[in-house]
């Protein structure tokens, strides 16, 4: 948890404020472009080339290559936008969440009241 996030002081929580939004702007802009099917195809055809079109930092690119959603969140990625990246590369909301919690998907489901309601 960075100093910037400490100002909110909510453990395990990354509040998407203007500071984080500015930091992650390029990531979210790229992810936003993936709402179009033709862009998703271009992304899958050449991830590096697609990332290069946007102004991502090397750290942000690496978090994306690693599919490290927690790290991407720390670097300003906003879930509502990077869900489109997840959908493109085959990571859904609950697996992403389980990973952010540091759990397997199965273990995560066990913590739910009605795991069948996916």
């Amino acid at each position, binding site marked *: 948890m960075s100093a910037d996030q400490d100002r909110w002081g909510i453990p395990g929580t990354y*509040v998407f404020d203007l500071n984080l939004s500015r930091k992650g702007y390029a990531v979210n802009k790229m992810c936003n472009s993936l709402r179009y099917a033709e862009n998703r195809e271009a992304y899958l055809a050449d991830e590096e080339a697609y990332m290069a079109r946007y102004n991502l930092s090397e750290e942000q690119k690496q978090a994306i290559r690693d599919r490290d959603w927690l790290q991407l969140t720390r670097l300003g990625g906003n879930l*509502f936008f990077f869900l489109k990246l997840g959908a493109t590369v085959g990571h859904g909301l609950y697996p992403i969440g389980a990973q*952010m919690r540091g759990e397997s998907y199965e273990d995560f489901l066990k913590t*739910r009241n009605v795991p069948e309601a996916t």
Partner: protein
Amino acid sequence: MAKIVAGIGSSHVPSIGRAYDQNKQADPAWQPLFDGYEPVKRWLEEEVKADVVILVYNDHGTEFFLDRYPTFALGVADSYQVADEGYGKRPLPDFPGDANFSEHLANSLVADEFDMTLCQEMALDHGFLTAMPLLWEPGENEWPVKVVPLLVNVIQHPLPTGQRCFKLGQALRRAVESYPEDLRVAIVGTGGLSHQLNGERFGLINEEWDKAWLQNIQDDPKALAQLSHKEVMTAAGAEGGEVIMWLVMRGAMTEQVKERHRFYYAPMTTGMAVLALENEGNTPA
């Protein structure tokens, strides 16, 4: 004179929309939820008979991007499209607007010092779509009510304060009641209840807090409006902070309200709720 005839709080969750579209109404995991909305739908159809609904929602990275993020945005169009959130459009009809009524609301709110973004075009994502078919039965190509979408920024801080949202509701009531036509207006505040979709706390639900919310929004909304975003997010999760949209609805009701129906269900990652309220007396909130 137009008047507000119903106030509804409702969650908006993409999985509800998927369950609806896949006809899971009888699926054991989903039946409670659909059953929970059913009495409200019946009440709206048989008693409330609204002509138009003001639906308070947020966009989720679908139509509004961070290049220009409004605090409050109001639809002023004759029709609104169902958005494609990237998985194809949901099989729901597009929505009829009431541009004259919207225009009156816009004129009234801006004169009342609310700095609205005004939208002549607006495609609506699950923030708007989830509640609609659970509350009003769509026909093949039409809806039984016209709509006025009202977007609130609950995505990028600074969010409007709870207090500001409540005041927006109060201003909406004044705006509605100064409209010369005899319109019956429902208002729906969507979002929440508790959930968190980021960080190590992903999946947080606080059922106790949610249940208290469903009572306090009726009895003491002004206290809820005083809560800071940090207080709400600490208890109800970062994304649960969007419950401030219920305060817009509540501010548009009378000081005293009568509960017509309440339902709560928390199967997965969001406290799902529907609450139906009626005005009692004439004193504004």
